Structure formats: structure tokens, C-alpha cells
């Protein structure tokens, strides 16, 4: 019978995590790619983030558990000009009803994660659905709740409260990730990949217009009218359970200039 977990983890957001049946090595690798969809300067967009974890020199190796994820986002990508997250979802509402327990107008994005569960001689793979929800603010920082839900072979529902932090020359998404045992007392699960879209793509919001409920797509994160000289650069620092850290970066190049 599947084990079911429902908990709020006392941490900061975004990523959830991983670990494997093998001891942590200093050769864990992270590949990150970021894209905009659609990609038109001066318009709103959906931010698509893809992370792939691995072990250097071992294509089938399982990466060590991640303990922290810190992603720097270009300061020119601003939530203020968007209509994402018009409602606020609380961890209690998520725990009680899952993502349907929150207003659809609190959704910031969605995605999926592939994890390996060390449940036997060879790891068992599992996919989890991810929902990013606007959470209660913490001071002047934007609170973000990452809700993950897996069903088989291990049913698990986890919430990672997190923060969209501002400071210095940009903004960042910072998450401390606790170990997630695949079974009581057992080794932790490993994240092997994650896709997350933050923006209006696949999101539907609702509003009342003259007593009628109307569906609409929210406005996404705004791209500036001018592209930075080296494109939009994203840098993630990912810390692993063995104390090592890997920095991964990805730049979205400037779009080709249009000919008139």
C-alpha cells in the first residue's frame, strides 16, 4: 500500500529534492536551461526552467540529495508588472485540499519532477506534479509555495514554503530542501530532473464580470523592451547533502533583430 505523506516543511522554496542510495560524491552535476515562451521583448512571458541532475562520468548514477537551491534571476524580469498570483494560498489550504484547495488565481505556474526512489537493489523512478502557488508574504518578500504531488509507487504530497527574494542587482529564488526519505528510516529520494513553468501558459484565472464568472489568462512576467547586452543570465547554486555545491548557469540570448 502506498505510503502517504502530507506535511509542511519548515523551509524555503523551490526545488525539491533528491538523493540516492549511493553515498554523496563530489561529482554531482547540474544542467540548467531557461527559456521564455513566448519570447518577445516588451511583452509578458512564461519562464521555463529545466534542471537535470546527474553524476559526472556515470550516466546512470544517482545524484546526491539536494539541500539548497538558490537561483538568481535577472532584475529586469519583474513580477510587479504581471497579474500572476492575484490570490494568496496558505499552506493550511494546500494541506487540506491539495492545489484545488486554493484559488486558481493563486497559481504561478506548474511543472513536473522525476525522482528516483531507493526502494530496492535498483532505484524506482517516479514522477511528481508540481504546482507553484502565491503564498503569504514574508515581510516585503513574495512568498511562494511549491506543492508537489506524487501518486505511484509512493504517494506523497509535500509543500515547500519559499521566498522570492530581492536584493543587490537582482532577485532570487531561495529554497532549503530537507531530506525526504523514501521509506521510514530509509535513504532519501533523489531528484533527477525538474521542469517548472512560471507564467500564464496553461493557467486559467477567473473573475466576476457583471455577475458572470469569466475565464482569462493572467499576464505573465514582463520582459524589458531592451535586451541586456549578454542576454538574460540565470545562475543557480545547488548545495548537496555532502556539503558540496554546484553552480549552473543558463543565458537566454537576445532575440534576432527584426528586419523592417
Amino acid at each position: 500500500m502506498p505510503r502517504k505523506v502530507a506535511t509542511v516543511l519548515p523551509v524555503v522554496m523551490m526545488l525539491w529534492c533528491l538523493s540516492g542510495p549511493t553515498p554523496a560524491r563530489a561529482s554531482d552535476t547540474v544542467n540548467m536551461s531557461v527559456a521564455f515562451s513566448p519570447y518577445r521583448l516588451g511583452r509578458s512571458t512564461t519562464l521555463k526552467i529545466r534542471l537535470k541532475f546527474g553524476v559526472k562520468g556515470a550516466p546512470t548514477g544517482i545524484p546526491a540529495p539536494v539541500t539548497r537551491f538558490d537561483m538568481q534571476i535577472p532584475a529586469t524580469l519583474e513580477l510587479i508588472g504581471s497579474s500572476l498570483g492575484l490570490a494568496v494560498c496558505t499552506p493550511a489550504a494546500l494541506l487540506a485540499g491539495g492545489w484545488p484547495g486554493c484559488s486558481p488565481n493563486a497559481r504561478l505556474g506548474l511543472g513536473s519532477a522525476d525522482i528516483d526512489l531507493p526502494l530496492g537493489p535498483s532505484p524506482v523512478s517516479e514522477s511528481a506534479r508540481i504546482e507553484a502557488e502565491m503564498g503569504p508574504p514574508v515581510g516585503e518578500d513574495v512568498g511562494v509555495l511549491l506543492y508537489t504531488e506524487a501518486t505511484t509507487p509512493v504517494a506523497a504530497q509535500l509543500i515547500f514554503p519559499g521566498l522570492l527574494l530581492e536584493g543587490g542587482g537582482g532577485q532570487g529564488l531561495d529554497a532549503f530542501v530537507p531530506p525526504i526519505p523514501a521509506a521510514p528510516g530509509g535513504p532519501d529520494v533523489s531528484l533527477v530532473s525538474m521542469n517548472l513553468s512560471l507564467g500564464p501558459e496553461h493557467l486559467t484565472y477567473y473573475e466576476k464580470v457583471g455577475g458572470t464568472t469569466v475565464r482569462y489568462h493572467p499576464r505573465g512576467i514582463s520582459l524589458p523592451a531592451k535586451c541586456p547586452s549578454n542576454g538574460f543570465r540565470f545562475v543557480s547554486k545547488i548545495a548537496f547533502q555532502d556539503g558540496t555545491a554546484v553552480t549552473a548557469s543558463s543565458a537566454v540570448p537576445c532575440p534576432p533583430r527584426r528586419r523592417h
Partner: protein
Amino acid sequence: MTARTVTFNIESNLHLIGRPGHVFNERGTFSGSQSGTIEIRFTSVTHTSGEATFAAYSSHGGSVSGHASTKGHVVGATVYFNGNLTVTGGTGQWAHASGRNLRFSGTVDRHTFNAKTHMQGSITV
């Protein structure tokens, strides 16, 4: 004519002109120590920085203009912003208006992008 100091304490209700994004052009009315219509252009307002320029047209003639440095933060459907405002000039009876370090604060509704602002301080005219 001798320069004098007057209170500049106005509340504005504005609506978005055009599309939202890194620039918000807002237009509306203001009331308080003066009244009339107002236009504010917000540029690249983030948690750490941002700018706004404004022109307030008095219902008694003339206008006051200036700029503000501001920053904002998001709480659900609302952006809260605050900063410092500088009055740099005007027209008509406000042609020589000046003032520094006036308070500038307000909110933007992230659904409609309508804005409410408060400008408070003293200016020399």
C-alpha cells in the same frame, strides 16, 4: 515676487493607459491641498528600485511636475510602493515650484493596474 512655501498633500486615483509592463502610464484625478488631473509614468519599479515622473494639472490653472524614486513589493493582488519625490517645476502660477524629499506612496491593483498614490510634503512656489 517672494517665494513662499505651500503644503503639497494630494491623493490620486489613476487608471492605466495602454499595456502594463516595465512602464505603467497612469492618468486620473487628485484632491487634497490642491485638486485637478494627474499623469504618472512608472518605470521599472522593482523591490529595490524604480522611477516615476508626474505632471499634476491644477483645476485652478497651471501644473506641477517632478519625479520620484520608488520601489515596490507585491502582496497578492496589490503592489505597495513608496519613495521620495522631487518637484522640479511647473507652469502658470506653479512655474517656479520646487521641493525635495516629499513622501510618495501608494498601491497598484495588479488585476486592473489602477493606482492610488499619496504625495505629501512642502513645495516652494
